[in-house]
């Protein structure tokens, strides 16, 4: 047994679905759950612009419908991250990761501001491009080792996973998570709506941490 994330506490095998909790994935799952609950109960903030060289400041008005949509997207993002944390199936992980990518773009794209829309579109293109290596990586996993189950991978009896499959999976997660691109661009942080934007960062961090475990399994 290869136990990167510790010995599984609980394994649920139901039809095609495979869910397991190790100390590692349970921690990540609880983190995603906590932040989703925080998003549900927290109240959005209004962004304040301060005029340089004076005391003047103004708050930006954000419509309720926009905030509702962003809250929905942030909750969906939290649910997708939770799914990606506990799933024991590589293809399901790819699907949840793609969903994280879509909801990340959705959180930002709801803002009615040209530069934010433009940035969201560019990141959407990156996320769309990243689904190709993501799903291709999962498919090469299935082709090379004949299984998509992480529990089977843990047993260590399967043939070695080709490096290209791991590389494609990681590249896919990098593109979907947006994190490296995200930090480099200020447009998204300038988008108003404080508690929801944090789900972008958190979900990317979580799927990165999870893909490290998956890559080290086989």
């Amino acid at each position, binding site marked *: 047994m290869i136990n990167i994330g510790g010995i599984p506490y609980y394994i649920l095998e*139901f039809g095609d679905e495979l869910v397991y909790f190790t100390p590692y994935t349970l921690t990540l799952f609880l983190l995603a759950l906590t932040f989703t609950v925080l998003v549900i109960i927290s109240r959005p903030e209004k962004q304040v612009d301060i005029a340089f060289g004076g005391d003047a400041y103004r708050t930006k008005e954000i419509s309720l419908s926009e905030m509702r949509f962003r809250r929905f997207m942030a909750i969906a993002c939290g649910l997708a991250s939770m799914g990606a944390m506990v799933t024991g199936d590589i293809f399901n992980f790819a699907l949840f990761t*793609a969903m994280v990518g879509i909801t990340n*773009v959705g959180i930002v794209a709801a803002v009615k501001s040209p530069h934010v*829309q433009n940035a969201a579109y560019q990141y959407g*293109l990156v996320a*769309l491009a990243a689904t190709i290596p993501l799903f291709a990586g999962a*498919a090469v996993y*299935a082709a090379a080792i004949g299984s998509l189950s992480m529990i089977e991978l843990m047993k260590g009896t399967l043939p070695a996973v080709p490096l290209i499959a791991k590389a494609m999976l990681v590249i896919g997660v990098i593109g979907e998570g947006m994190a490296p691109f995200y930090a480099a661009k200020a447009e998204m942080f300038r988008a108003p709506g404080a508690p929801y934007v944090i789900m972008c960062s958190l979900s990317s961090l979580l799927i990165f941490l999870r893909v490290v475990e998956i890559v080290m399994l086989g």
Partner: protein
Amino acid sequence: MWGQYSYGLFVVMAAAVIAFFALSKERDDLHKLLLLDLVEIVGLGVIALLGTDLAEALILPGLTVGIAELLALSQIYCTKEGIRDIPVRGLNIEVIAKADAPLIISLFLVVYGMILSGFTGGAVAGLGLVILFISRSYREDLNLLEMASGISWALWIFAFFVFMFLPQYWFVALMGAAIGILLKVTVKMSLVGTMWGEQHD
């Protein structure tokens, strides 16, 4: 088998590299989106190369995710560029609007789709309805169609639960799933044919 798989993988990779190279040269936002969709379809080839039942089961979610992202990005593009909805009322081609040909073609497609059944049959039958709706420019109450789609989807899901919990009744579940997905895809595709971007609530 592995040899063929490797060659196929190589062809897909070469196609993806060409498309990504074109993408790096492209400056227009809309063209970038179209090129990415092109790469996406080629990329599905990697899954298809598995050549097993599993590949068929995996392509569908892969394709769905791709289409979902494509739709989301097109919506962002429309908002970004300030493009407004222009209601279109069918094709204004006199021959199509008056002749019997669309009716015959759609009837043929619907009957053939029902014989095929399942997802493929739904797509074929839906295509038939799309042709009819496009050519005739109907103004129907779409809420009923949406409800039918929802109910048939529920039938499909119910059939899956029968597969999981009562495997001995697999034949009933198979028929339920086949009919459910047939109706759902047919209705969804005919909605695609009628909802020409008009605001509808």
